């Protein structure tokens, strides 16, 4: 297995861990963090796949997608955090209304 595939598999692992975190945590901040971990996994897969052929230079198309993707992810996270703060100021807790709090 070449190193690129290894990194791609790690990316898939990150994506899955993030998805698990997104589902089982009810706190919205944890959900946002988990969502970011999923995103990082996707970026890692894309960057790794861009380099999977060993003797030719990296494929620039996925790299360009990751560059813009990171900045968009940052702004989406900012929006998510603001939405979370708004939920907190409306309801007093940082979970969605239909979550059972224990």
């Amino acid at each position, binding site marked *: 297995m070449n190193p690129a595939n290894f990194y791609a598999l790690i990316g898939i692992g990150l994506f899955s861990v993030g998805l698990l975190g997104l589902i089982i945590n009810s706190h919205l901040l944890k959900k946002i963090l988990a969502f970011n971990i999923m995103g990082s996994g996707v970026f890692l897969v894309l960057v790794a796949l861009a380099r999977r052929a060993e003797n030719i230079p990296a494929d620039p198309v996925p790299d360009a997608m990751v*560059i813009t993707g990171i900045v968009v992810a940052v702004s989406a996270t*900012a929006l998510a955090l*603001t939405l979370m703060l708004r939920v907190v100021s409306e309801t007093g807790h940082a979970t969605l209304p239909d979550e059972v709090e224990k």
Partner: protein
Amino acid sequence: MNRKILLLTLLLPLLVTLAAGLAYAVLSLPEQPQQLPKLVINNMNESGVSHPVTAVLLNFRGYDTLLELVVLLLALLAVWSLNLPAAEPRSTPNRVLDTLTHLLTPLLILITAYLLWIGAHAPGGAFQAGSVLAAAAVLLMLAGWRIPAKLIGLPLRIILITGPAMFIIIAVRTLLFDGQLLKYPPAQAGLFIAIIETVATLSIAATLAALFLGTRPIAINKKNIEQASDNGSEHK
């Protein structure tokens, strides 16, 4: 608690299956990417820059990048429309943060310019440069700096909009003169990309820094402060 354990036992097999499926998909890809890298390398001469990632970002897939800039702006609009109360002004920063900010801010601005320039032939470009510049602004805001009242209204909005606006102007120009959206003539491609990257850097930095504030910046002028202190004395 039991509910969580039940959820986990149901979820884990599903997630493992998903991960295995994704891993299979990734490992079964052909060893070499097929068409796109060759297309990029064969057309590098017409792109106006010599770094393939920048060529893809601002020339071959310029449409994507234009929309990404619009997404940034939309995120900021959404944040502003949520209208959260402005964060309380923090206490004055300690000397370490203060000194560090004094040292780092000019350096970060310099790095921004470098990243912007190097983007034409090495890793770098508008998004990286804009992020570094935004980091400088965030550092300043953590150290107690606020956007000057003069800049808050129209000037801030103009900075936010110039990146996407310039991109759209150039897109319309290519549509009118060359018949296709964002198809730069090879002779001027370098110039167009340099213009777009420079204004996009400023817009990206301003958008990210404004997102960090979390709400629409309000002018803190002397009047407000006096009013605040008046209120404070009344309470006493």
